[in-house]
Every structure is written in C-alpha cells, then in structure tokens.
C-alpha cells in the first residue's frame, strides 16, 4: 500500500502535477522524509516558482555590482576595497501569527543572510504594513512586531536606523514585516555558498536543532484561513544573544582562510542550505543526521531536515581546518559538529541510526523546481481625478488632518524602541528622508531607505512599481548620496488568481523600467505571495530598499531647516495631481483615481542636480515631496528644526492642488541668499523647473493668509501614535 496518500500530499502543499514530476525524478515513490524535502524546496517561498519568469526581467548589473540576485544577499563596491552587502526579506505570515517572535526571527534571518557573506552588519531597517487602526488586532500586532524587532536588533548590537509604517484595512488579516540589513565587507574577503572539493567536511555550527518552525516555508506559501492561528507552533523562536555570538564567531573564522563555502539555515533549514550549497557546486553530500546537535530527544530525520530552528549555519571547511574552526566556536560557546562530507555523486544521502533514510538527486530538486507562467490579466486603468472635482479644504485645516493621520503621523513611538545609535556611526537618525551611516573609520557613508506607496500600486501596479523605485532614488539623493542599488521585497496576494498575477507582472515591469532608467540595479530580493485572508488580498506592496554612497560624509544634508531668512526653492512641476493621493483619502474619504505618473528621464536629471548642489555646499536642507504633497513636505522640514516658513502660493493653480497634490519628481531645498542665484542658474542649465516658493523663519507655517504654529503642528504630528498605542494598556 502506498505510504503517500492524497491527504499527505495536500498537507505538504504539493499539487498533483508536481507529485507526478517527483515520481519521475525519483524513479520510485518517495518516503515521507523525501517528500517533506521536496515540499519545502518547491514551496513558493524557496523556489519563486510563480515569480521567477518575471524576476529575470529586472536589471541586475552595473560596474559597481559585485554580486547580484541568487546568493544570500547582493553586494556592491563602494571603493577603497569596501563592499556593501544588503538584502530585504519578509517575515509576514509568522509575524501575524506570533508578532514578537515572527518579527524578531525576521530580523535574525536577514542579519544571517548578510554576515554569511563575510560582512559585519552595520544597519537594519524595516518596512511595516498593518491593518486599519480600528481593527481589533492591529494595536496588538504593532506592539508585538515593534517589540520583536527591537528585542532582537537591540540585543545583537546593530542599529535600527529607519523604515516606514503604513496602515490600511487590506492588511487586516495579513500584516507585512519586511526587514532589511546592510553590512560592510572587504571586497577581497567575500564568502559564497557554492560547495567545492570532494571529501571536504560539511560542518554545522550555531544553535542546536529543535522541533520549532517545521514547515515554516510551506506555511509562508499558503493563504490564511480562520484556523491560521493554530499554526502558532510552526513559528520559530529567536535567540539574539546566540546570533551576536554567531556574528563574532563567523567574522573571526572568516579571517582565518578556513572556509570554502558557507550558508545560513533559513527557511527550510538544513534542507535548503545543504541542497543549495551542493547544487551550486555541482556536488553531492552525505550526511549523518545522528551528528547534528539536537535540542530534543528522538527527533526523526524528517524533523531534523525540516526544522527551522534559528541561529544555525552550515559550511564547507578546507581540509584540516576543523580544529581552527572548533576552537573559535568553543571560544564563543557555540555548538560545532562535522555532520557530513562532500561527494561526487550529485546525490543527497542522509543517514539516521546507521540506515539510509533518504537518497535524492540534488540538481533536479534544487534547479528543476517548477516554474510557472501563470495566467494574468492587465489591471484596468483608473480614470484621472480632476482637481476641480476634488473639494477644497482650507490648507491649514487639511494640513492638520494629514499630519495626524496614521500614515503620516510621527513614528517616534516606534523608532525610540530601537537602538539606532549603537556602533557609533549613525550620522542621520530615523525621521529624515534616508538614514546616513558612516563607514567605520572612514569619511564615507551610506544612505539607506525603504520605500513603497501601496495605494499607488493598488491603483496602477505598473506606475506604482516605477514610483517606489523613484521615491527611493529621491530619498537617497536628498541626503546628497549617489543612489547605487536596490533590494526588493515583493508582497502580493495569491498568484493563482489572474488579477493578482497581473499586479505582480506589472509592478515588476514598472520597477524594471525605473531601475534601468535610473541606473539603479536590483541586487537582491525576496518574494512573499499568498498574502490573502479569506480571499481578500493586500494592496500590492513591492517594497524597495535602497543604498547610496556619500564619498564625503561631512557634506550630507538633512531635512531640517537650518536658519531664518533663507529661500525655499521647489524643484519640479506642480499641477495638483489628486488621484490616489493622501489628501483624497484622508481629507475627502475617497480612495480612487489613477496615481501620479513618474517621468523617469527628468527624475534622473533632477537627482543629479540635487546631488551636485549639495556637494557644492549650496543646499542647507533638502527633502523630497511625497505623501501629502508640498505643504506636508515643507512642514516636515519645519518640524525637524522648529523654524517656521512663509509660503507664497501661485495663482495659476487651485490652492489645495498646489498644497496637497502628489505630483512626482519634486524636491524642496533651503537655500541661503548668497547661493540663490547659483542654484537657480544651475537648475535652468539642467532644464529643471525651479521656483522660489517662500522664506524660512518665524515660529509658524504661513500660507494664503492662514497660519499655524510649528509647536501646535508638532503636537498634532506627535500625538497620534502614542495615543493610539496608549490605549493598549487599558485594552488588555
């Protein structure tokens, strides 16, 4: 009688046609351990089977790209032998089920992806999306996720320097927790995962293996239903102290010329790490599972291979280096075991209690995983909302509504729970356009940001994809840094639905166009699909994490106004685009219309101009115009400094359109009187529209005869989040 019943296949998320391929590959019926291995290797999470076809279209190359997608993280060259290693990754499903541990282990996982390659992590970021604030679960999820990110990141001693947080009802049943790590390596000491050298030892180190997280990768590849919370036992538990030891031990060992290849055990644990290393090296592995350090008695081969216990690494050592490695692991009090050997067979042979318990071909599993060309439909284009059809609310009144709305309100409550200064190189802290982190012991710095505007992506995934990349480019440029490369974290609903697949396809196309035109290649990424609960999908959320380079950190610019009596200059055209704007949603209660288009050729020109002017010391403060439009951007510059501003609105455009339209490709600059002529001349020379819109000074924001004090606006901006989260105490 067959051991593999349709029920077993269903519980492993294996489709009938996939099982037919498994039988072909094996030439026999697999046993349960083997089936479990197939199920995690072919899960959407590990195989990218729905998105692969489209991900291949993204630009991934540039002169400064050392390593693009396909490894643990992407790597770029920042000169003088320094390299930046970075990636963003989701931990959405676990964080919804168990917010503290889900978010904590998300941080742990992305840190390992980066230090596995030989980099010391120097900064963390996170992009978070929660449900409607009025949803009964939202507050609890925010509290848990923020505590989890802080609990892990603070303990490992890597600063969490920024991020973004949105709230929308489409995330009520599927929050998004996307964590990004940026690390620093030397270009001549980078480590990859391809195994090499038949006979070389396969070594396990880090924490012991337990029964936690079994089938996490499969869970992350399924829609949620009303019973999803019963999956809590599959959420892993993080130990940031062990992670800290692992970072130090890895970096110490990497300095000894002992490692052939190394890979962390992330999703699908020992299975995916061993298969990926062997497959990339074209080799086989024989492992004795009895040697794996275990936390519990009586674990089966199935459990050992599928465990997602955290803080574990797998590496191939050079011959005779076992003692060097063991001594370093002893010093850091980490488990260390030789668990296998590389073979030339191209097969994975697993032994338990002296018997062969699995014997699988490696390449067909790792490389011949299914690749689907899923059917998709073009998302319908939405009509352009006319400015004259949008009610005009008095600017200061609308400004107050926007500053206090959940998406724009200050996120101080969040980032104060993250240590954003440890390591002593945080030059720009959270709250600006991008964080700026100095390269330790040098005059260089990297600017880091995460961006995505899901309401634009919902309205038009193609334009939304372009905009996410363009906004990241602007945020980096506004600090004075040169945008170098991006990592993407693509969060969508169920790809088996043609309309969702259409969102994925169009968002990737849009991102690809922007990355190509802005010379901003994608070097790493992660895909999270099936973000649906009871058939309702999230807003498409292709989160972009970006890194830029400042050659001279002393020239960086912040968003805070620096003094009174300076000119406020706007780069870019303002036509009052209202479709999919925050004004339309928060002030008028309407979620409709096409999002603002991005003109990529002008985007690049403007970015170059802004960076050049900052480099020449002609810009005192700089901020890009994004959510909420121009008046919000200027107010944010005032809030960051306490210095007010008086604006002169042009008469050619309706006031609410000028104040709150979300036309793309705009920057606000503070320029001193002596430099004004040079700045305007430079803008004209580069064919960039520039306009003096007002003057800094005083203690209030003045526009069209109305005003509000910076102090009052600050109180509104700061009030929402603590008040909202404060209700948590009384609610439980």
């Amino acid at each position, binding site marked *: 009688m067959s051991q593999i019943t349709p029920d077993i296949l269903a519980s492993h998320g294996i489709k009938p046609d996939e099982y037919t391929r498994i039988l072909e590959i094996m030439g026999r019926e697999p046993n349960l351990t083997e089936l479990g291995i197939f199920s995690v290797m072919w899960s959407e999470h590990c195989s990218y089977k729905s998105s692969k076809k489209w991900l291949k279209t993204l630009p991934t190359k540039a002169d400064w790209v050392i390593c693009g997608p396909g490894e643990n993280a992407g790597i770029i060259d920042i000169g003088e032998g320094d390299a930046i290693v970075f990636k963003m990754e989701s931990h959405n499903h676990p964080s919804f089920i168990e917010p503290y541990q889900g978010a904590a282990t998300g941080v742990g996982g992305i840190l390992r992806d980066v230090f596995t390659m030989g980099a010391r992590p120097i900064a963390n970021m996170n992009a978070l999306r929660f449900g409607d604030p009025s949803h009964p679960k939202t507050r609890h999820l925010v509290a848990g996720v923020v*505590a989890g990110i802080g*609990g892990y990141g603070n*303990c490992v001693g890597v600063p969490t320097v920024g991020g973004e947080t949105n709230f929308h009802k489409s995330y009520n049943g599927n929050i998004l927790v996307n964590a990004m790590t940026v690390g620093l390596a030397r270009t001549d000491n980078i480590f990859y995962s391809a195994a090499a050298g038949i006979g070389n030892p396969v070594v396990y180190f880090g924490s012991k293996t337990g029964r936690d997280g079994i089938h996490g990768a499969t869970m992350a590849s399924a829609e949620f239903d009303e019973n999803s919370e019963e999956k809590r036992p599959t959420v892993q538990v993080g130990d940031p*102290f062990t992670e800290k030891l692992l970072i130090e031990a890895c970096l110490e060992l990497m300095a000894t010329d002992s490692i052939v290849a190394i890979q962390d055990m992330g999703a699908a644990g020992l299975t995916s790490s061993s298969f990926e290393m062997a497959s990339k090296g074209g080799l086989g592995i024989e492992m004795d599972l009895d040697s794996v350090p275990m936390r519990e008695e009586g674990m089966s081969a199935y459990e050992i291979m599928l465990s997602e216990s955290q803080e574990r690494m797998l590496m191939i050592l050079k011959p005779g280096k076992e003692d060097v490695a063991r001594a370093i692991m002893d010093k850091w009090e980490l488990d260390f075991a030789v668990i296998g050997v590389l073979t030339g067979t191209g097969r994975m042979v697993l032994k338990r209690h002296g018997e062969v318990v699995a014997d699988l071909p490696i390449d067909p599993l790792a490389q011949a995983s299914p690749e689907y060309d899923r059917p998709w439909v073009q998302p319908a284009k939405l009509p352009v909302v006319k400015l004259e059809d949008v009610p005009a609310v008095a600017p200061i009144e609308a400004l107050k509504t926007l500053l206090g709305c959940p998406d724009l309100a200050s996120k101080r409550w969040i980032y104060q729970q993250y240590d954003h200064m440890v*390591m002593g190189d945080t030059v720009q802290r959270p709250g600006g356009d991008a964080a700026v982190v100095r390269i330790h012991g040098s005059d260089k710095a990297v600017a880091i940001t995460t961006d995505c505007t899901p309401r634009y992506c919902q309205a038009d995934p193609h334009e939304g994809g372009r905009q996410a990349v363009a906004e990241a480019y602007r945020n980096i440029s506004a600090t004075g840094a040169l945008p170098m490369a991006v990592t993407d974290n693509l969060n969508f609903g169920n790809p088996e639905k043609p309309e969702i697949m259409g969102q994925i396809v169009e968002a990737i196309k849009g991102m690809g166009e922007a990355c190509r035109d802005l010379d901003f290649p994608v070097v790493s990424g992660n895909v999270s699909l099936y973000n649906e609960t009871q058939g309702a999908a999230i807003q498409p959320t292709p989160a972009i994490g970006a890194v830029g380079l400042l050659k001279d950190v002393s020239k960086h610019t912040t968003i805070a106004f620096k003094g009174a009596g300076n000119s406020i200059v706007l780069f870019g055209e303002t036509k009052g685009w209202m479709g999919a704007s925050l004004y339309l949603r928060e002030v008028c209660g309407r979620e409709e219309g096409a999002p603002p288009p991005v003109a990529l050729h002008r985007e690049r020109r403007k970015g170059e101009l802004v960076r050049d002017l900052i480099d020449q010391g002609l810009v005192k403060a700089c901020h890009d115009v994004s959510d909420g439009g121009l008046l919000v951007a200027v107010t944010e510059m005032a809030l960051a400094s306490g210095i007010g501003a008086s604006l002169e609105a042009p008469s050619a455009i309706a006031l609410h359109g000028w104040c709150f339209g979300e036309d793309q490709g705009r920057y606000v600059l503070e320029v001193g009187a002596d430099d004004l002529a040079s700045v305007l001349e430079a803008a004209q020379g580069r064919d960039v529209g520039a306009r003096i819109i007002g003057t800094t000074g005083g203690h209030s924001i003045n526009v069209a005869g109305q005003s509000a004090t910076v102090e009052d606006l600050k109180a509104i901006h700061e009030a929402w989040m603590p008040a909202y989260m404060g209700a948590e105490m009384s609610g439980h």
Partner: protein
Amino acid sequence: MKAAVIVFPGSNCDRDVAVALEASMRAKPLMVWHRDTELPKVDLVVVPGGFSYGDYLRCGAMAAHSPIMREVKARADAGMRVLGICNGFQILTESGLLPGVLMRNKDLKFICKDVHLRVENDRTDFCRYYRSGDVVRFPIAHAEGNWFVEPKAYREMEDNGQIAFRYATAEGKVDAESNPNGSLGNVAGIYNEKFNVLGLMPHPERLAEDLLGGSDGRLMFDSLVEALS
C-alpha cells in the same frame, strides 16, 4: 593614562567606547576578554554597554560573576578608576561596586533617545571638565534604567555627593517629565563612596563627536585623561 575595556559575550558598545577613549587618549585602550583572569596594569577600566550574556537571568547578573569582574573589583577596592556605562552600570550594581538596583523602565519599554542631564558633582576625575549645574546632552538606550536604593542609603548618598547626574530639562530643571525611566530622584549616574567608580545609564561615548550630533560626552573622556595622565 592607560585604559582597558572589558569585553563580555554580548557587549555591543565595546568598540564605541574604545573609539571615544582613543580620541581623547590618542592611544588605543586594551580590550580584555571576559574569561581572562589577569587584568593588565591600567588607570581606568571601562565596563561597556550592551547585552552581556544576552541579559538573560537579569541584566548584568551573569557578567557580575565572571572571573574578570573579581579582578576589577579587587583593583577598584585599591583605588583604580572604573566607569560603567548602561549595561556596565548594571554589572557594577550587580557586582556590589555601586549601590542600588536597576529595574525595568516605568513604561516597560526600551527607550533610545537623547536626554539632558544635570551635572551634580564636578569634583571627580570623571567630571572635572564639567561644572556642577551644567546641562549636558547624552543618549540613552535601555529597558532597565530605573534606579532604586533604600531611602536611608539614598539620603546618605546625596549628603556625600555620590549622585553624579540627574535627568533634567534642557534648562536644568529636574522634574517628573524629564525622567525617562522612573529612576529615584531622576538619578542617571552615581559614584561609590570613594568616587573612583562611576556608573551611568546614558552613553557619553555616543555623543563625543560633532558629526554624530554633539560632543558633550567627549569631556568625560578628556576629564579622565587629564586626571590620570
């Protein structure tokens, strides 16, 4: 001046304080691993911030029982200067080098932000470049900084001048609003009876350079160099 920084597994601020010390000393401090039992001959030992032993059990409790802390204690008893920052302060109270305990912050959350401190006693080797009553800005980054000691002991400490810093407003007013963690008397840092040991929750090493947003912390390291050279 010769200085050493103790490194425990989970010390995260060892490098940060070494950088700040080097800027003032114009020489690198020694880094001493927690398992070492011999402490080199130095004028100053810094117990840095971080999460020694993951802060499991209780912050600083496990580090306080490490072999190197026995040696630090013996030298401190003999008069060597010891500076404990954040987790280092917790380790010093757990070791009995400083009085009181550090409990969970009053709102139970980790807090990372700049705070203002009023200098309470400038007649020490740590604070000779400050003046009593000065307001300085240092960052805090902790979840357990809520210092407490029995009322009688507290009065004696106040009378002896053992309070080093109090949380205050930018104008130097010590009030409930400027207290970030609920500590008794807004206390941010304290001395032992002989004034050769200072423990404080805020991080002077994090604002010791203008590029990072301020340099009030630099004066503490400059004070030590001036006093001990």
